[in-house]
């Protein structure tokens, strides 16, 4: 597909000028230069995101415009957000929490979520967002792995997904319920915030002190809790500025939910650190609502995801006609590769193309991006940001060998950037497996072309990318075999034009069970209850046997190859075949 070239004016307007002297500086200094810092070299994400702006005279500047589902609107200034988050930090200490404690949040996009995230960080405690649409199982598993001490949630979510097992979680000391009322063993957030002081001095956390835990799925075993430190804010600041054009005063809308890493890093931290005005929409995707928001709020920078963009495409250019998108300056996309057609389509409809970028929970921030100053090759993820060294590698005698341009291998990064994960909680061996021979291994297969642009090819493992969310087959299979009729399960991702991939399950049944439509629905219903709609399979098919290796491992790869009509590859380890 033909290149989308940038005009000289467009290039000149970019925050990152690839030829500028700035590149001569070490990139940590470049990120640090966007921050204020605390005395004695301390650094605190919450302080950088709100308090310092107030201290520097920007307290009246609008930080957040919240749009409720019902159409109400609430505007919070940096001063308001500093006060609210200070109240939350004080509340945590007033209730006996201590520095380093783990605060989990599971709720929709409401102002309290932002105050909780920033207050936790200012308090020197560790913030973990959970996707509110998860079912009780994924919520519980993540809170157990993360040894959650505090949970902030809504009454409805608590009753439906948490109350039944709350007492079994001994680490959990405090449950805060949004609003004025709370069940007996919880604390109502609104009055507790009201009682707490608006004065709080951000904790003097060190660069390597834990700040965030983000969960991500693994192919085998339980989800992994990737730990990020306060020093990561250097890259949050820099990547927001260079990859997303976030500058003070810009109106910015990140459509990602803070329950996932994008919604926290680029939906809370990076934009506030860069002192933009954030739009936060409580509602889910709705075409007219979204176009209306972009027009009415005069959104200048819009960060969204391929699934949403493809839904806009499905509705056609006509649906976008009549809206005024003239305020838009820069559009970006993340979550899974954005197909070339969608890039070209957006350029036609919005007058500006979506710029795809690439990163992972583990990288903590954008690593490779199409930026404003660069021409776009539609379908490519772009080039590494300043300070990021990326390569394409393959195993070589226990080490790694870097491949020349044009060859497909695993996408790898040179470790050491500030937002790199520092640990997988309780899983040192799994953490160490991510690094080899001086590289961080991403698990993504990719190719670099002769112009230095990177192209995504596929996953090197069995992880599924559906609607931008990474789903681990093991977690889904574990839920499926909890159904009394199911003996074994194998879960794969199959291509879908809107979601990228959808989750499909193959199951075998216990004897005496009848494979019929009713049973299929019953199993799928249970999976949705346990896992939530985003993670549960959309389709379940029955098999008499699943393909397995001699050691009894189910060969998901083979099921997928057959499903897609691809070559079956090496099947020398196949012991029992699919029936």
């Amino acid at each position, binding site marked *: 597909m033909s290149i989308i070239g940038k005009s000289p004016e467009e290039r000149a307007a970019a925050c990152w000028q690839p030829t500028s002297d700035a590149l001569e500086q070490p990139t940590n200094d470049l990120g640090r230069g966007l921050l204020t810092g605390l005395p004695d070299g301390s650094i605190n994400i919450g302080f950088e995101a709100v308090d310092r702006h107030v201290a520097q005279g920007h307290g009246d500047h609008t930080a957040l415009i919240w749009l409720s589902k019902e159409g109400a609107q609430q505007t919070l200034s940096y001063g308001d957000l500093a006060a609210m988050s200070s109240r939350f930090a004080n509340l945590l200490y007033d209730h006996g929490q201590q520095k380093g404690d783990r605060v989990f949040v599971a709720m929709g996009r409401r102002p309290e979520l932002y105050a909780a995230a920033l207050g936790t960080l200012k308090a020197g405690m560790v913030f973990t967002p959970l996707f509110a649409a998860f079912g009780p199982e994924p919520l519980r598993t993540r809170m157990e792995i993360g040894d959650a001490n505090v949970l902030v949630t809504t009454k409805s979510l608590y009753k439906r997904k948490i109350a039944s097992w709350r007492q079994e979680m001994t680490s959990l000391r405090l449950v805060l319920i949004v609003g004025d009322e709370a069940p007996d063993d919880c604390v109502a957030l609104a009055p507790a915030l009201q009682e707490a002081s608006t004065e709080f001095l951000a904790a003097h956390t060190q660069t390597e002190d834990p700040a965030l835990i983000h969960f991500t799925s693994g192919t085998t075993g339980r989800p992994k809790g990737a730990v990020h430190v306060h020093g990561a804010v250097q890259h949050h600041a820099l990547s927001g500025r260079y990859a997303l054009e976030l500058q003070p005063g810009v109106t910015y809308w990140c459509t990602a939910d803070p329950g996932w890493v994008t919604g926290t890093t680029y939906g809370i931290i990076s934009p506030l650190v860069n002192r933009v005005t954030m739009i936060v929409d409580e509602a889910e995707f709705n075409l007219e609502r979204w176009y209306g928001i972009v027009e009415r709020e005069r959104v200048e920078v819009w960060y969204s995801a391929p699934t949403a963009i493809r839904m806009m495409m499905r509705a056609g250019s006509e649906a976008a006609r009549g809206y005024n998108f003239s305020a838009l300056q820069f559009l970006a996309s993340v979550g899974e590769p954005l197909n070339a057609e969608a890039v070209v389509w957006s350029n036609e409809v919005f007058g500006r193309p979506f710029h795809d970028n690439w990163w992972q929970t583990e990288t903590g921030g954008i690593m490779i991006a199409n930026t404003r100053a660069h021409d776009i090759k539609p379908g490519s993820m772009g080039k590494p940001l300043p300070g990021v060294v990326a390569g394409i590698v393959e195993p070589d005698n226990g080490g790694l060998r870097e491949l020349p341009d044009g060859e497909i291998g695993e996408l790898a990064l040179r470790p050491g950037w500030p937002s790199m994960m520092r640990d997988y909680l309780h899983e040192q061996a799994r953490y160490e497996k991510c690094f080899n021979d001086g590289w961080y291994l991403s698990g993504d297969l990719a190719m670099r072309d002769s112009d230095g642009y990177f192209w995504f090819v596929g996953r090197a493992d069995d992880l599924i990318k559906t609607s931008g969310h990474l789903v681990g087959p093991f977690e889904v299979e574990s839920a499926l075999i909890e159904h009394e009729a199911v003996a074994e399960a194998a879960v794969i991702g199959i291509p*879908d034009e809107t979601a990228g991939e959808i989750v499909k399950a193959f199951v075998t049944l216990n004897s005496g069970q009848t494979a019929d439509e009713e049973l299929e*629905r019953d199993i799928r219903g249970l999976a*949705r209850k346990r896992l939530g709609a985003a993670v549960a399979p959309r389709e379940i098919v029955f098999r008499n046997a699943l393909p397995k290796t001699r050691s009894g491992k189910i060969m998901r790869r083979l099921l997928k190859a057959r499903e897609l009509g691809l070559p079956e590859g090496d099947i020398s380890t196949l012991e029992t075949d699919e029936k």
Partner: protein
Amino acid sequence: MNDSEIRQAFLEEIHKIAPDIEPADVSDDDHLQDDLELDSMDILNLVTALHARLGVSIPETDYAQIETPTKALKYFASRHGP
């Protein structure tokens, strides 16, 4: 098709896509996403299924008009052929 048949068809198709939702438990003003927790892929599948069953094509710009059983009933009643 009368109103109750349309309502039944609507709820049955929801149940096929989200078997965790029992038609009997759905209130007329339950919001598909906020209350029943259907996600955007569920909505797309529902729209496709309703098109096949009721013969009514639902453009993306109309999705908000079927977000509760009450709204959906009104929407389909005005579009469904005799």
